[in-house]
């Protein structure tokens, strides 16, 4: 169905501050696959990373240890079939394509910590939350999965939430960014 357009819950294009301190981009169209498996299953062994950490697989998929015995695989758009096929399925293993079920944003720049500190109670200092950290928490009162996934020395986070909260959450994060120089479009209101 790759010819069908994927419609994101977020209508807005990328936003960034003039000074470059912060940028916010909707990446909801990325492929997201949820894997539930015991650590002793072949899938668990294959995925390897433990809860709280992430690694980049050779095919480019980002493997996130999102919960105990639970992984989220993130890849470019349209990779669902490939990702599903990439996993050994012996034993009690569940693989669910959640691409359509989760909205996802990338928040990048020096001021990300300042932005997230306005909406999220997690300690984001480097020793508590280094690059590669995977964690969950409340962001602007929505439960989110987050990955610190720095880009070429630019601090960056992937933030994902249940799809139906997507429009709200994008607006809420954009609102938090405004202190750091992002001009928030008028149609992105949090209320």
């Amino acid at each position: 169905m790759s010819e069908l357009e994927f419609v994101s819950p977020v209508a807005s294009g990328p936003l960034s501050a003039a000074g470059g301190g912060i940028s916010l981009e909707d990446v909801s169209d990325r492929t997201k696959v949820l894997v539930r498996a015991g650590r002793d299953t072949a899938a668990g062994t294959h995925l390897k990373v433990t809860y709280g950490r992430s690694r980049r697989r050779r095919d480019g998929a980002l493997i996130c240890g999102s919960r105990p015995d639970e992984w989220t695989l993130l890849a470019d758009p349209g990779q669902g079939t490939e990702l599903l096929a990439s996993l050994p399925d012996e034993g009690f293993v569940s693989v669910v394509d959640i691409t359509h079920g989760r909205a996802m944003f990338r928040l990048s720049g020096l001021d990300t910590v300042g932005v997230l500190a306005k909406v999220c109670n997690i300690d984001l200092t480097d020793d508590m939350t280094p690059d590669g950290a995977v964690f969950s928490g409340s962001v602007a009162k929505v439960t989110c999965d987050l990955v610190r996934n720095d880009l070429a020395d630019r601090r960056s986070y992937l933030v994902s939430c249940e799809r139906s909260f997507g429009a709200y959450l994008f607006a809420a994060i954009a609102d938090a960014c405004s202190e750091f120089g992002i001009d928030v479009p008028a149609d992105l209101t949090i209320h």
Partner: protein
Amino acid sequence: MSSHRLPIRSSELIDRSTSLSFTWNGRAYVGHEGDTIASALAAAGVEVFSRGMKYHRRRGILTANHWDPNLSVQVGDEPNVRAGSRRLVDGMQVSAQNVWPSLRWDLGTANRLVGRFLSVGFYYKTFMRPQFLWHNLYQRILRKFAPGGRVNWKTGTHGEYDKRYAHPDVLVAGGGPAGVAAALSAAEAGASVMLVEQEPELGGHLRWGGPDDLAVLADLRQAVYSTPAIEVLCDSIVTGRYDHNWVAVLQRSHEVAPERLIKARVGSLIVAPGLVERPYVFAGNDIPGVMLAGAVRRLINLWAVKPGSRAVVLSANSEGDAAVLDLESAGVEVVAVLDARAGEDVVEARGRGRVSSVQTGDGRILRADLLVTATGWTAPTSLLNMAGDRPVYDKVAARYFPQALPDNVLATGGIAGDGSTTELTAHGRETGLLAAQRALRLRHDRRAQTPRSPAPESDRPAAIADSRIPLRRSPHPECYRSTTHGLVDYSEDVSSKDLIQAAGEGFDSIELMKRYTTVTMGPGQGKLETVNAAAVLAEAMAVEMADIGTTVWRPPFSPVSLGALAGRIFEPVRRSALQDWHEANGATNLLAGQWVRPDHYGDPMAEASNVRENVGLIDVTPLGKLDLRGPDVANLLDLVYVNRWQKLEVGRVRYGAMVAEDGVVSDDGVTGRLAEDHYLMTTTSSGAGAVWEMLEDWLQTYRPDWEVHVTPVTGGLTSINVAGPRSRELLERLVDNVDLSADAFPYFSVRTGIVAGVADCIIWRIGFTGELSYEVHVPSGHALHVWESLLSNGSDLGVAPFGIEAQRILRLEKGHYIVGQDTDGLSKAPTAGLDGLVRLDKADTIGLPELRAAFERTDLPVLVGLQPDDPTIVPDEACQIVEAGSNQILGRVTSSRMSPTLERSICLAQVDPSLAAAGTSVTVQLVDGRRITATVQEHHAHVDPEGARQRV
């Protein structure tokens, strides 16, 4: 008025090159940057700032800082602004509060004439009879006298407030010498530090000290601002310390918000607020011109304001002695210095609108316009109280000291003891080091326990004992009250005489006294008043201060605006992938929990009829949807639903109802078996979250041996119900690879197929509306395409969207109950009519014993279909069913609508079992009080009870 501004002082905060214009009660004034509202007005000769709450006596500057009870003013639309600390801003419109018609001529002063009759608690002792006078007259008058400023409730908006979280290892509350030194040593020891100071600049009392103090201060400031690990927040205040060192900081005058709340999880909290100077209780102690030593020192040294011309000073300590020197240096004639340490005293200040004379303890009457008192200190122990400490009174030092603090809270500076600047900073440094070591130990543990952070490279820092040398406690006379009576609480107008009366009436514990007299209950919350109140009570009871205890200081330490507490107001809203389309196509929305969804598109009756006649589409995405996988799903379903699930075949769906452990109906929905070990469960929209958590609970804590994975897919699958006699025809045009014919795809079946080119759509055939209908669950990224395809391919079939209201009509025609509307918090399975569904012979089901007990009972209410005998009357939902000749309640209408299909009113109702038989006539009382009759129906369904329409 003449200028009271002094020549340049080396310590002054004002920038004389600036001029800020503002108004006070409508009159124009000018001040400088660095001025507070009060200092600018005082410099211009203003002496009266407010009126007392009860007797409306004139009030002037008392403490000249944030705690000054006499300096609450209105600034624009902001009430109760502390003019003693609020910095002047160009264009401010400042006015006095609680005066009418003006500060100068205030009619409230009439209360003074009857003051002797308005003794404490007087209102409890009168106005009992006649009652109508209390309600209609006295109370209205009392309300007119309410103090405080005016809030702009008519046109005000929430405004730009903000919040943020912080995670400092060490938070220092108070930027005086000890606090600054603590911050520096904590940072040196490797801790991240947040240093919070109430004033706009660091330094505490050093700011109004001599050249040596100023030199030390300059060094400390330089060191702090060149230490990156210290975040300095001035003009900010720690307002609360809550359990587990959750600390609230109110950051004022930040560029993004006038007030911003910082919530900090703090490793170690260092409490270093210094001391609050305490007023002295004597006759006339509220006359303008009576000031505390700290007030005159601040006025002279920080703002170069001459506080008077002839001063009497009552001094019990070095602050008073220093005030004498400051007064002299400012050209104020010091008429007399009364040394309280030598037993000298003041018994009365006299004057109207300004002190004119002072009577001393030895009977002298001195002409003066300024009476300065330095009689001791209150330790502002609020944050320590909040940390569980009960500070103890030390008779020798005449103040309270910390008793037992938890490891994560440390005290330094004046609150911990006395010392020179060198001694205070030394204690601060030791405290900072200890705080840092404890905090770093906690940080080490936190890293070790948190999976996202790598294990700490170093060993756990060793626990360090508290080896600090305590600050000494300098002797200080116990100066609380003179031989005369005066005010104890300035903001509440409570005098020492009032307190003694209250004790005599039986209010002889500090908490009872507080409640009866309202002492310490005003905006200052006891900062100035608490210790004096305790002293007066001790005197009245003839006991030691130490035996009185103090009132518990409750948060916040300083009042916080509702705006700052609210912050940005995040209220998450959920939208289906089709919600933009709905709104663009005329939908009227409905808020259902967090979801916003279409109630109707203009004409719900027509929308419902169209479903009965043609075909309609409704977006039911908010239905909870849970993807269940694993070999034990059927076991799980058997446990959580009242019916059986072991024999559900692949490709079939089934209705299920849930009860809680107490047997009360809790949720319901349809679950389908998509593959051998793969099911999709639906729940009510409002119950989706709770059902998910409940399934996890049973799987994790009760049956961890079962292999089931639960994944919520509510928003990922956009659910479109295609309902109506032409629904099959419409779907056939768009569905590939699924045979929709009645034989191949019977009622209560499920198939997975391609709809409008979108793969992985789950289609199940069910009938909430009572019509032939298919619920299509579409991957949400392609849902709009499917929805629009259904509309564009069905125009010849009369396809049209319908909203929740039409669905409610349709389901009521069909007699489907809604959990939580037609059932309530006591409804058990028999009430909902689940007799046919429930299986009591299962080994286990949630609430099984209660299910069994419920079916033994004959007294439970019964849900029935009900039709008013007059078909044009629709009783409102919640109308009561009553005994014909009385007000005895026998049931209620739970749902009601006008049925477009039957063109008559229809209802569901819960009735007493004696009324449940079909054909029973019941009496319904309408909202307007009329009573009508209605007849109980054989079925819940009013339309097509046999289900013929949905089984075609």
